[in-house]
């Protein structure tokens, strides 16, 4: 897009989306200012920082942040940038410390971000420097939710629960124990890799692009799931269920399942009797604990804007950090129940590794598609043709059988809703409008 020309406007309700939004530097810059600087973003998981002094380097948009636990045990999210010349005050990715000391001029900060050390302060800064206002910049708001940590730069942002809205039971199905108890997950490993593609392709993929399954034909032919050695093809055992594609006012979209009323256990770990018995037992417990609500399970989804999940297997949260219009840094946090037997965790981690990420047999093909779809947004001739988002246009209903806008067939409604919310953020809409509370 030439300098000075207006940003393209996205009107997804038409069934078309301009290609520029996937490759334009101006659009990317606006996203940083009006979207990533305001929306609630996934920062990490408490299991990464169990003790006071523990830290984990993370990101919010293009901004580097420190996720840490201070001496009082409180979880902090701080901009990793010295207030003097901006150098990163913490450069080890994980560890335990009492202070963050800048390598440049040695200003140092405590775990709550307070500026506690300025070399030669009395000689050079006496009566001038106000230390109290020179702490590391804290996130505007931080929320801890069932082990996960989220933050927004905007102190005026609504509560995380209000931001989630009715997507909450779907996210709960990701984060809660397999036996239905609340929370209880831990991170057993993190993938970080570069995808030369716009971040929105990845976010859109997870919020309900079930239509892209043909790209995974190779794994479906050979079978890579936990029942593959027993002769099952595909990526996992599919349970009989009503598939739902649901979108929400804040921009979230999910693909979830509603099991039949009797909600039987579907064998899914046929290669490993011990794991199968464990998950069958968890399923029975969950049904006993949650009753009717246990029929809902989360398949994939995206919490707007860039935190996606696999709710069942391979269970985890993937964050699509924007590096530039044509580059994304993907981080996947793999989740297991912390108190699962060691053998079960071993079965899961092996499945996660062969499925997910740059070495994963499934997701390699996703990266290939996103790269070349992004590259297709550069040319002036290509750009004359917007992308088609007409799939299942209008085929949804509100609140039936779960809250949200529900489609019972494969649809791009979740994507249309995502780009509606995206446009509202780019337009700088007020918070009530951004979370659907303006009517």
């Amino acid at each position, binding site marked *: 897009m030439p300098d000075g020309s207006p940003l393209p406007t996205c009107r997804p309700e038409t069934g078309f989306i301009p290609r520029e939004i996937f490759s334009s530097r101006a659009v990317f810059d606006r996203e940083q200012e009006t979207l990533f600087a305001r929306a609630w973003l996934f920062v990490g998981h408490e299991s990464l920082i169990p003790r006071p002094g523990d830290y984990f380097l993370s990101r919010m948009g293009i901004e580097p942040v420190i996720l840490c636990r201070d001496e009082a045990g409180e979880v902090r999210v701080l901009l990793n940038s010295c207030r003097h010349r901006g150098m990163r005050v913490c450069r080890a*990715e994980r560890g335990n410390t009492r202070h963050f000391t800048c390598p440049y001029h040695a200003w140092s900060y405590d775990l709550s971000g307070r500026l506690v050390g300025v070399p030669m302060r009395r000689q050079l800064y006496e009566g001038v420097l106000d230390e109290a206002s020179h702490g590391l910049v804290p996130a505007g708001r931080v929320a801890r939710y069932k082990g996960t940590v989220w933050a927004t730069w905007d102190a005026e942002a609504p509560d995380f629960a209000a931001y989630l809205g009715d997507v909450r039971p779907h996210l709960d199905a990701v984060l809660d124990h397999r036996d239905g108890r609340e929370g209880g997950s831990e991170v*057993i490993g993190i993938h970080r890799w570069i995808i030369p593609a716009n971040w929105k392709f990845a976010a859109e993929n997870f919020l309900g692009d079930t239509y892209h399954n043909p790209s995974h034909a190779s794994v479906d032919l050979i079978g*890579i799931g936990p029942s593959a050695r027993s002769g099952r093809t595909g990526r996992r055992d599919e349970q009989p269920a009503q598939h739902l594609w649901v979108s929400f006012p804040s921009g979230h979209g999910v693909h979830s399942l509603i099991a039949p009323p009797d909600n039987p256990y579907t064998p899914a770990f046929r290669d490993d009797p011990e794991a199968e018995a464990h998950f069958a037992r968890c399923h029975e417990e969950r049904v006993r604990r949650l009753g009717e609500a246990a029929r809902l399970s989360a398949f994939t989804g995206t919490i707007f804007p860039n935190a996606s999940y696999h709710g069942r297997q391979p269970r985890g949260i993937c964050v699509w950090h924007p590096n530039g219009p044509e580059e994304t840094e993907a981080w996947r946090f793999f989740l297991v129940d912390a108190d699962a037997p060691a053998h079960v965790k071993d079965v899961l981690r092996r499945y996660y590794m062969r499925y997910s990420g740059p070495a994963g047999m499934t997701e390699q093909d996703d990266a290939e598609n996103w790269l070349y779809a992004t590259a297709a947004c550069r040319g002036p001739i290509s750009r004359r043709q917007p992308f088609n988002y007409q799939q299942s246009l209008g085929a949804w209903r509100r609140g039936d059988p779960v809250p949200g806008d529900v489609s019972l067939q494969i649809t791009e409604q979740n994507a249309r809703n995502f780009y509606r919310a995206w446009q509202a953020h780019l337009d700088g809409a007020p918070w009530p409008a951004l979370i659907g509370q303006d009517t």
Partner: protein
Amino acid sequence: MTSPAAEAAIAIGATPPPLPPDPGLLLLRQEVEDFLLHEADLLDERRFREWLALLAEDIVYFMPIRTDRAFGEQAGEFTAQGRGISWFDEDKWTLTKRVEQILTGVHYAEEPLSRVCRVITGVRLLAVSPDRRQVTARSRFLVRQGRLDYERADFVGSRTDILRREPEGWRLARREIILTDTVLLAKNLSIFF
């Protein structure tokens, strides 16, 4: 985790000093080097099934993930084989699956197939069993991957291999692959190392 190869694994960062001079080891090293170069040729020539045949049935194929740690805390730099999440922590079944996937012809990350040149160098023996039927070898690699028109990825690193002499010849029983990346700077690890 109790295979002979796993027991013989040298911990990362604990490379032993060179073996004492021994004319017999010259020939052994030649055999090992030939094996590794042949293996690279098979992979470059996409003879994946023939490559699989060179892997022991109990092979451990491991590529850890690295993270930067503060001085004094480097113990956590590499993920561990047998625990948590690494780039690869595979057995022969998954490696076979990866080959089968490529051979479907619709694995789009490898269709069209990547063009790969593996430069294997600096082969040396770190340990040799008394009966000389199991050898631990270190090598360095430079792997260039080309895809379609503009895609190029370079992987530089070291491998620590355990080779076992079986009735049919040398077989790879353990491979540990160390890259320099923390954040993986390639979009995929769709090739073999």
